[in-house]
């Protein structure tokens, strides 16, 4: 399950039998068109193939369409890519609990970068929990909605949580339509045009990392980030689930995720787990790391540590 093939830019990642599907799709076209065009739904979207089955040509058309829709929706030119995973790269993330001060700058840098809905619903991919030093990492004493004049507050420490990019992702297992999967570089992605909004993945995720667009997302045009990835920060439609992608639009181009870049205390580390010289490997070699909810055997690619 976990070693599903990567992006369709790799030519030989084809499906077992695409022709049968496309035949069925054509055969059902009449009924489907009648059923959905009444609801104002794009017929081409309904009859489209799964992302991993798209030919390079079809993918190009799909990306162009996303750009066209962005233009209609926000009146802005955007660049939407579908850059695949790089050979020999497996991303890892490290979070230093002893450094984090709970300022939530990462939360808002993520919002600025990843085009989530701003309010109704307000979607944050990073959730910072305030915890009691007296209790350690204990969710029964964790406060997500702390409202502090200044941080860190005495007696408290901070525990940010986002998608842990599990090697054994329960969300991928639960998804009934294969709308979410794990890529070769370890990033768990969602095709927002394939998700049916059933929210099985949200029930399955032990980290509260998946978020639903309960209404049409609210995103002001002037706040739109035009550099987008199809499986990452492109604007989402109503009624689908989204999550942290380690800033796939940045990291596959060799940049840091926005949360790593903004962190004022350097609590966030990121890099290629397969590269012995990378920052994340340095952390793992010199510090002792732990993973969140290890008893569930999700095997995250996200590590917590105490540097001091």
């Amino acid at each position, binding site marked *: *399950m976990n070693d599903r093939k990567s992006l369709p830019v790799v030519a030989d990642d084809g499906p077992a039998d695409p022709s*049968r*599907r496309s035949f*069925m*799709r054509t055969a*059902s076209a009449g009924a*489907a068109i009648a059923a*959905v065009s009444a*609801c104002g*739904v794009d017929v081409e979207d*309904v009859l489209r193939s*799964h992302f991993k089955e798209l030919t390079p040509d079809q993918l190009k058309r799909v990306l162009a369409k996303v750009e066209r829709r962005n233009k209609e929706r926000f009146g802005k030119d955007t660049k939407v890519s579908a850059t695949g995973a790089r050979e020999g790269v497996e991303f890892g993330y490290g979070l230093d609990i002893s450094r984090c001060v709970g300022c939530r700058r990462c939360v808002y840098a993520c919002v600025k970068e990843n085009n989530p809905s701003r309010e*109704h*619903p307000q979607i944050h991919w990073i*959730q910072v*929990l305030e915890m009691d030093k007296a209790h350690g990492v204990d*969710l*029964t*004493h*964790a406060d*997500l*909605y702390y409202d502090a004049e200044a941080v860190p507050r005495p007696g408290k420490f901070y525990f940010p*949580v986002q998608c842990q990019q599990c090697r054994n992702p*329960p969300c*991928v*297992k*639960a*998804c*009934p*339509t*294969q*709308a979410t999967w794990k890529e070769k570089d370890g990033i768990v992605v969602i095709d927002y045009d*394939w*998700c*049916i*909004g*059933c*929210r*099985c993945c*949200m*029930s*399955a*995720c*032990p*980290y*509260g990392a*998946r*978020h*639903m*667009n*309960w*209404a*049409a997302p609210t995103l002001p045009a002037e706040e739109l980030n035009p550099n987008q990835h199809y499986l990452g920060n492109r604007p989402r*439609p*109503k*009624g*689908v*689930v989204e999550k942290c992608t380690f800033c796939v639009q940045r990291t596959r181009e060799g940049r840091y995720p926005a949360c790593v870049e903004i962190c004022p205390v350097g609590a966030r580390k990121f890099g290629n787990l397969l590269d012995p010289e990378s920052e994340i490997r340095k952390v793992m070699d010199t510090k002792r790391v732990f993973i969140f909810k290890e008893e*569930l055997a999700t095997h995250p690619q996200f590590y917590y540590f105490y540097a001091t």
Partner: protein
Amino acid sequence: MNGLLGFAKGSLREVTHGGRAYKAWVAALLAMIALGVVAYANQLSAGLIATNMRDEVSWAFYIGNFTFLVGVAAAAVLLVIPAYVYQWKPIKEVVVLGELLAISALVMCLLFILVDMGRPDRFLHIMPFFGTPNWPASMLTWDALVLHLYLFLNLGLVLYLLVKTYRGEPYDKRIFLPLVLLSIPVSISTHTVTAFLYNGMAARPYWNASILAPRFIASAFCSGPAVMIILFQILRRTNKLPIKDEAIFKIAELMSYAMFLNLFLLGAELFKEYYSATEHLLYTQYFWQGIGEHRTLVPYAWFSLACSVAAFVLFLIPKTRANYRTLNLGCVLIWAGVYIEKGMGLIIPGFTPSTLGQIYPYTPTATEWGIAVGVFGIGFLVFTVLVKISVPILVGTFRAPGRAVQPAPEGTAHPAH
């Protein structure tokens, strides 16, 4: 073809004719459906934000109703077992009515899933051939599979039996019996797979207990037959369906055993949670005691338990289960008890506290109530129409021309309502 037309015409006549009570009932159902349609139109345009579901409690009222109704659907057919074992005379009637109830409950199940979807326009993505079902990994694909299998099996069986009876021909036991017997394990599998949908999620300790599927089956054995007992009494009065008192009392007796099992399994679960008192106790605590000032579900929890225990006692004592007043009270109590237990009492504590320890107090919105009322309206209407057509066929007053068992004089061909 001519026969089919005659059957359709006759069915239409059966459905459109009835007494004042029948017409009032259908009018009430249509009003419920209208309310549901308005509420769903509102939800479609606003999105699921029209509900009170949020990221912390991401399944709620709809999925709770779905779960309860899967139990009703499963258990209706399970009545077939005692019908055979105790050799009840009107066995064909029991089978058909059980299957009609199962069909209606399944229609409601599928509708509750549909209204819960964020993108109902993409339902093809879960279908084989048209989409990319994540089978066998995803439990929801299994659930869709067994629910549809069960639905079509029941439809086929009922249709076969009714068409044969309508034509005045004997049904072929070699076709009928294996299908009825097959429907029993399929009915159990629908409820088991639905339990597995929750059971398999390690992220939710409240559901991640192997006792869940057995508890589902035990409670279903109570709620499904409770409907049938009420229904048998109504049909006996309106259509002279020959169902004996002993059969009804026997069902009540079996229900008391099922309720005992259900309460025993609940006790086993409560013991384990409270005695070991690990961090997993929180969810059980939220349901039965509340956490801090968050006590939304506590009155429901105890009310549900009181209903279940009272019904158990009423059905256990031979005197009260043989008295129609206490028997029917017991049926209503069972419905209330199991509806809370398998609905909100199962779903909401699964999410509260959330995976990050936060408490979001959920209560359904008016939109959610409206849509649920509409779905129940559709389900009851489907059931009413099916029963209205089937019962006259079964008692022999609605037959193909020239095949009537006892040709009645003009004008009295239909039972008085």
